[in-house]
């Protein structure tokens, strides 16, 4: 077993098998759930999760707590809506521009906040995020003010109308996998190592000749990419974008998503998004006080786990491994590392 894992061909084989499995899981989902659940729970969780990965990446990899991700998200979403509805640009050109706007606005936010870190950075980016909201609300010549953009039609890709649920689901799922793969790829490049240096030990990073400023800015740019993709898909999903899509409630929601999911793995963002989406949709069936329930669930998760729900899950797994080892089984080193 161990030998197989280490051999290159074994790895390739396993990767292929897993990709197939993943593909099968995605392909099967629309058949398993109702149309409503597919759209309002699955697709919503996926795009909220995509936006969440940008924050999970910043926190988990680079130790940068950014509340400005909704500003990036909104920049991309608004840009697409503006280009199509106000300037008559073709939808795909607008999508490309919006996708490009993600890293660019991430870059700008990074430049503004590159000299801050820790909780200070969190508050600074909160101010930037709220600025994004007020800009959308007040700067009417571009943003149409409080009403925002309505009636945005999702594009048609290879004959499949993304206004329909199944095509939208497949595209969103593929986007989710692609975004996660890309972010994972980045974490394995030297830049990824630098991000972890930023998180764990800034001084050492500097001593090695890295600029913390450049590292911070590039981390924001990378994260901006997935936030931008999330923004684009959210506009397809809602058919609209308004200041209400990026207000303080949404800023906080994204933070809750990532905190519930945990940041040791990027995929936690999807788990967090799912939990939040389920709570938002179904909590009112149990209580008149939805918000109290949401807040309380959130507080409990924060209290009992350092790494959110995924942390609880992995901790349990690691305990199981310990027990196995006790009985002569082998323990995987990386498993333990991840839980620290």
């Amino acid at each position, binding site marked *: 077993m161990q030998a197989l894992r280490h051999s290159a061909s074994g790895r390739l084989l396993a990767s292929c098998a897993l990709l197939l499995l993943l593909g099968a899981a995605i392909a099967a989902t629309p058949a398993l759930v109702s149309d409503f659940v597919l759209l309002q729970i699955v697709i919503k969780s996926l795009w909220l999760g995509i936006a969440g990965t940008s924050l999970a990446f910043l926190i988990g990899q680079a130790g940068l707590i950014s509340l400005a991700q909704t500003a990036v998200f909104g920049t991309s979403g608004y840009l697409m809506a503006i280009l199509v509805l106000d300037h008559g640009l073709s939808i795909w050109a607008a999508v490309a521009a919006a996708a490009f706007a993600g890293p660019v606005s991430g870059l700008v936010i990074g430049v503004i906040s590159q000299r*801050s870190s820790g909780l200070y950075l969190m508050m600074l980016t909160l101010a930037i995020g709220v*600025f994004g909201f007020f800009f959308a609300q007040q700067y009417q010549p571009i943003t149409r003010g409080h009403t925002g953009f309505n009636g945005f039609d999702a594009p048609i890709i290879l004959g499949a109308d993304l206004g329909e649920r199944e095509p939208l689901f497949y595209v969103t799922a593929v986007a989710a996998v692609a975004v996660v793969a890309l972010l994972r790829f980045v974490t394995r490049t030297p830049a990824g190592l630098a991000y972890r240096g930023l998180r764990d030990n800034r001084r050492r990073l500097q001593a090695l*000749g890295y600029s913390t400023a450049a590292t911070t800015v590039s981390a924001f740019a990378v994260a901006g990419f997935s936030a931008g993709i999330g923004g684009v898909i959210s506009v397809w999903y809602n058919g609209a974008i308004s200041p209400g899509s990026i207000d303080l409630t949404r800023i906080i929601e994204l933070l809750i998503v990532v905190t519930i999911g945990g940041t040791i793995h990027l995929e936690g963002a999807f788990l967090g998004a799912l939990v939040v989406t389920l709570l938002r949709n179904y909590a009112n069936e149990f209580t008149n006080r939805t918000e109290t329930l949401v*807040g309380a669930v959130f507080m409990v998760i924060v209290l009992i786990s*350092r790494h959110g729900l995924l942390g609880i899950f992995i901790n349990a797994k690691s305990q199981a491994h310990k027990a196995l080892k006790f009985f002569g089984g082998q323990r995987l080193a990386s498993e333990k590392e991840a839980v620290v």
Partner: protein
Amino acid sequence: MHRSSVPAASADGPLQPDFNAALVWGRLSRFSQHSMARRALGVGVAALLAYYAVSKSVEIGDRSLLVLLNGLTAAGLYFLMASGFTLVFGLARVTNLAHGGIYLLGGYGALSVQRTTGNWFLAALLGALFAGGVSVVLYLVLRLLRGDGLRETMLTLGATIVIADQVLATWGGIPTDLDPPSFLTGSIDLPGSTLLYPKFRLAVVALALLAGLLLWVLLYKTRLGMLIRAGVDDPEMVSVLGIRVPLVLASVFALAGALAGIAGAAGGTYLSLAQGEDNRILLASLIVVIAGGLGSLRGAGAASVIVGLVEAFAQTHHPVLSVLITFGMLTAILVLRPHGLMGGAADASA
């Protein structure tokens, strides 16, 4: 603790493209930090802004007095909020996002008292006690996390959601307000003009000054204050000295909560109490705290005056874009002084 080590572990060698970019970036940013250039730029921009502000103010004549007073009133309320926030951060390293919720609890608590007793001062006092109590409870919950800054912040975030919803459940969603004490009802004539200014607003400025004075006395003239200051500078040393740090922390939380509670009673009187006010005031005080430098009481004082005045000026002369101007100013301050007006580098990396 470290999942993977910093670049030393990289087998790919250091000469990656992004590495070169890093060096170039480093040189560029060092150049931009060159003190002469920065100072000249700062002076130039400040002069332009000052000229603009003065000429605009002359344009509207004696109404500029109103703008000034409005700015100071806002500054007073912001200081009551920001001082507590910044103290808690300085000492406990907690960014208390529930501070706005506690403001609302103080205000609504005072409202209930005023409706039964009719006395504003009793109401404000009990409202402040209530808010201080809630703040201490919050501290006790936060203690469970033992100084994990991010999780503590998240917990206060959860708390603020719960508080807002419980306020809605208890006091309802219809906006309301407190009545000012009778001798502060109405307005006075401003000297040398036909303009009026509400008495209660002037009292808010006085209240903030009083709070600032008391805080100064507390911090610099009492044993508790000495401990607090020592705790801000070096928390570990204080605990080594055998001082009961939790007690000091609890009292700071209580103090911050009470200040927010008083602010709630004052704000609930000259503004109003409603759902969403917690977020409005939290944002305003966050701007003040960031601009002033986290953990710095003097910074909070200076920044609340600056933010209040800029806000009043922008609202008067550029009403539609006023919110953006306030945030623009914050960004400008941070570009010039990354850790705020009076923040030290230590605060920023906390």
